[in-house]
């Protein structure tokens, strides 16, 4: 089966974003951008399924600016076979991303879509569930284990109370949680090879999807800063202070 993996280019997870002083958003100029960490986990899972002989092609897809080609090349350096960039400089909300992905699915006919549970920039945690709804497919969100059979996929999900296991008919959507796997680093020869793998560039209008935002961001501000308190010299002082505050 073919596996489709949507990957988003986001601020590198090690960096602390700077809020623009005019309140219009976050300043991403000259900031290191990387593949969303959950999407790396998704790419890794798809490649492992291919290596295990359970999938025969892994296609990575991104919706975003021309620079998202780098993100797609990273996916191909990890082992994906080819890539699709749906290029736009506009901000595309999860609902519109899901609609574009639905159109890509219609063209590509994958047996499964594996994607991140959450993009670490918008922190929406929506796109996978929305895509599943639009396609009328089953969804295995927040996956920490994926077992693929010929007609079903069994997904262990990280839920608030522990680990839940569900069985989904195929085709299905899986969204990844942190414990699903540890993504590999692309090796140099594979980075070179990835440069020659096919990368198709499309636009949202090719798929006839209206990406007009539904949400309007009125302002973006820094959260209230928490003042650092004091360093206490020893445990006795800590206990005394906690008691004085009424915290214990």
């Amino acid at each position: 089966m073919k596996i489709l993996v949507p990957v988003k280019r986001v601020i590198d997870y090690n960096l602390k974003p700077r809020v623009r002083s005019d309140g219009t958003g976050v300043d991403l100029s000259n900031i290191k951008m990387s593949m969303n960490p959950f999407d790396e986990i998704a790419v890794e899972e798809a490649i492992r399924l291919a290596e295990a002989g359970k999938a025969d092609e892994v296609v990575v897809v991104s919706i975003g600016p021309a620079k998202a080609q780098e993100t797609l090349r990273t996916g191909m350096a990890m082992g994906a076979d080819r890539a699709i960039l749906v290029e736009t400089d506009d901000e595309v909300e999860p609902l519109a991303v899901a609609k574009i992905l639905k159109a890509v699915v219609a063209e590509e006919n994958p047996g499964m879509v594996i994607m991140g549970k959450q993009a670490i920039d918008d922190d929406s945690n929506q796109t996978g569930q929305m895509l599943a709804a639009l396609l009328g497919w089953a969804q295995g969100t927040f996956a920490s284990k994926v077992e693929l059979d010929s007609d079903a996929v069994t997904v262990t999900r990280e839920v608030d109370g522990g680990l839940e296991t569900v069985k989904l008919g195929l085709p299905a959507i899986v969204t990844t949680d942190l414990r699903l796997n540890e993504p590999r680093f692309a090796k140099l020869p594979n980075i070179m090879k990835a440069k020659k793998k096919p990368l198709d560039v499309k636009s949202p209008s090719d798929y006839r999807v209206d990406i007009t935002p539904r949400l309007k961001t009125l302002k973006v501000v820094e959260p209230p800063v928490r003042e650092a308190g004091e360093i206490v010299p020893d445990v006795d002082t800590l206990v005394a202070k906690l008691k004085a505050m009424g915290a214990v």
Partner: protein
Amino acid sequence: MSALVLAEHDGGKLNPATLATVTAAAAVGGPVHILVAGGDDASAAADEAAKVAGVEKVLLASDAAYARQLAENVAPLVAGLMDGYEAFFAPATTTGKNIAPRVAAMLDVMQLSDIIGVEGPKTFTRPIYAGNAIATVESSDAKLVITVRATAFDKAAAEGGSASVEAVSGPGDAGLSTFVGLDATESERPELTSAGIIVSGGRALKDSATFEATITPLADKLGAAIGASRAAVDAGYVPNDYQVGQTGKIVAPELYIAIGISGAIQHLAGMKDSKVIVAINKDPDAPIFQVADLGLVADLFDAVPELTGKL
């Protein structure tokens, strides 16, 4: 604006996150109804929901298909009921996060995730970039679909209301997915997201036995819930549902004690709204000290047993 709130429950008991969600829904103005979707035993949760202050009506959908909150089954039920409502609210728990976006897509609505404030009938605040920025967003959709960060809203009173309970039904089993099992984390402790005190441990705790031997006595002494950093969970010291942070649980207890946790932005995102933060770390430059009210630079293997003894 009439709002439908999805109850989070385990059949018999309503999860307190539901009460915070009712507060958020009521802030939008207009009547609030609660939907209890569940199996045969859901009527107990519906009776509890009917007592919640400010709730006008409870819709009870009992069907084996809803017993496990499978999104494929519950989302069509909700979407079918939304003709009568202008807004749908769910707690931003793993259940709410699983179901609400599926509802939103069925209604062709862009969801507002994890709101922390209500600024107007269609305007809300929500954290982005792991809480390093707060966005004020206005929806232009005909209906609203929202998940609510429970720690950001007071809980509606669990008693005092007298809503009627009305049975509703939906399409039932969509035939897409089946529940196989739940490996529930058993604990006598308070639940992480509603605990008054949390003791959290990080990578420095070495292994699960050391974590247990070091953190548990302190938590017992304080009647606290136990949390952890991602590193501690990944290393298998504690189960996954102990993780506090951007992609784990968001907590805001009266007292949060971070032990052997460096304070990565992803961890801070989950706990920096705690009332009092205490950090114990041997590295004076650890970022956790930048948010701690009280910091102790010490080896935790000396300091924690001593603290436990002296409390």
